[in-house]
């Protein structure tokens, strides 16, 4: 008897129209009323990069041995911003769109996906910038550039899984938003974004290996390997054991677990939000 209610979870014509229009609106509203408008999608990560570059590369002199370190750093910070934007927007999506959920009936996952798609658009614009910077920096185009597609996809699916899982709890317990904000701050330092993996490996190789089993670290390192330099330490060339599949297993478990939780809880979003 439950089956009949869950069948409409497909991307039919009506849902596609809705998804497209909501994403468009989200993107428009994000930069509404600012002088520079859409340019902020570019400027924000570039400014964050500038700060990190000055502090870590120039003042603390980290990462000197990595070729094209500035672009390497930009690549990491961009992907990290993508992850944080995707998850925080996704987690808040159901609450933010509560008004819609209470008035019309549609598959609730659409609001989460549309919120994360704005982050995807921002990220894609920034990847274009990274590629330009890379070329200016003397990186030669390579077939390995295509490696970033599966890595970005993995990062997106992980973010989506987290958004579904925590977003459905956030409807009832708004504390989740604040907890996640703090957690993300801590997570940033547990991932080799501003520091190279080699720095950790100098003190402890097992610590470096554990760090690389984090799917975010794995995806970011893969993207750097593919796009910037083959000197980038990746999970699959550093952790040489069956453990290399751990990041993939984590990503898929979070996605499956998140989707199932969301599907179960979404029936009552309209009442609870």
């Amino acid at each position, binding site marked *: *008897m*439950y089956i*009949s*209610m869950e069948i409409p979870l497909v991307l039919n*014509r*009506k849902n596609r*129209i*809705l998804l*497209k*229009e*909501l994403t468009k*609106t989200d993107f*428009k*509203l994000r930069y*509404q*009323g600012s002088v520079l408008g859409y340019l902020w999608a570019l400027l924000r990560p570039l400014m964050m990069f500038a700060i990190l570059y000055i502090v870590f590369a120039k003042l603390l002199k980290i990462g000197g041995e990595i070729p094209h370190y500035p672009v390497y750093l930009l690549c990491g910070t961009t992907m990290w911003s993508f992850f944080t934007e995707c998850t925080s927007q996704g987690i808040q999506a159901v609450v933010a769109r509560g*008004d*819609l*959920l*209470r*008035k*019309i*009936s549609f598959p609730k996952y659409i609001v989460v996906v549309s919120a994360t798609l704005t982050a995807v658009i921002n990220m894609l614009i920034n990847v274009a910038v990274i590629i330009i910077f890379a070329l200016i920096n003397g990186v030669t185009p390579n077939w390995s550039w295509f490696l970033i597609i599966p890595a970005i996809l993995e990062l997106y699916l992980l973010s989506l899984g987290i958004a579904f899982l925590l977003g459905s709890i956030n409807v*009832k*317990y*708004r*504390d*989740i938003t604040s907890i996640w904000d703090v957690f993300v701050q801590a997570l940033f330092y547990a991932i080799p974004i501003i520091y190279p993996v080699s720095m950790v490996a100098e003190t402890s190789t097992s610590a470096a290996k554990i760090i690389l089993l984090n799917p975010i670290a794995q995806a970011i390192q893969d993207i750097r390997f593919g796009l910037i330099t083959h000197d980038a330490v990746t999970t699959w060339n550093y952790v040489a054991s069956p453990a290399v599949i751990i990041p993939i297993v984590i990503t898929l478990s979070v996605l499956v677990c998140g989707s199932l939780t969301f599907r179960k809880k979404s*029936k*009552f979003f*309209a*009442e609870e939000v």
Partner: protein
Amino acid sequence: MKRQIGNRTEINSTTDNIAISVRNLYKSFNLPTEQSSGLKQAIFNRLRGVKGYTEQKVLKDINFKIKKGEFVGIIGRNGSGKSTLLKILAGIYYPQKGDIIINGNLIPFIELGVGFNPELTGRENVYLNGALLGFSNEEMDTMYDDIWEFAELKQFQDQKLKNYSSGMQVRLAFSIAIRAHGNILLLDEVLAVGDAAFQQKCNDYFRSLKDQKQTVILVTHSMENVTKFCTRAILIESGKIIQDGDPNKVSAAYTKMLAN
């Protein structure tokens, strides 16, 4: 916290003469008893063994069948469960127990101008609201001019919605809403919009729905509209149907009930 759930099925049968069938419908809400809802409170409640919410029964054993072409008015006092019933029919709330069968494409208007955003222009809002009703951009292109014509607001189309008066907003919303064509329309108190001249347009629209034998369910407090448009009325009191039938009789019963 396993919650029961009833059945809501959508079918599309041209031979079946029934548009909506509701059987043994029950619905209750779990209202939080504490002022603060949050993780802390939830943990305290779990430790103390208290539920943290009270169950409010909103609909108790609702049964009715609506035939195709009927214009049904649902009336009742505030808090009697009318809007909850409408939201369950629309698929926004899930029924707790019971079976609902919707035969045909159902379009709910719980509120006009759903998704309207004050920061967007009139034009952008028309497309957004249209998408929420299931219209693609191309479909909206073809009816775009008619919408503004009907709303009589053409000169404001590129203004932000926040610069519209509330009456103008409702007129625009209504003009988009009437473009939606479904087999069944659910309307929650959306008849009374705009000034007298626009009101006349609205009345004409509802008259035309009645003439076209469109299936409509209308929640309203206006007995005038019930007797004017409806072919049948259902009176709900404390979550139960207490009268169902001829609009004149049912609205008279409601008026009498209010007087007591």
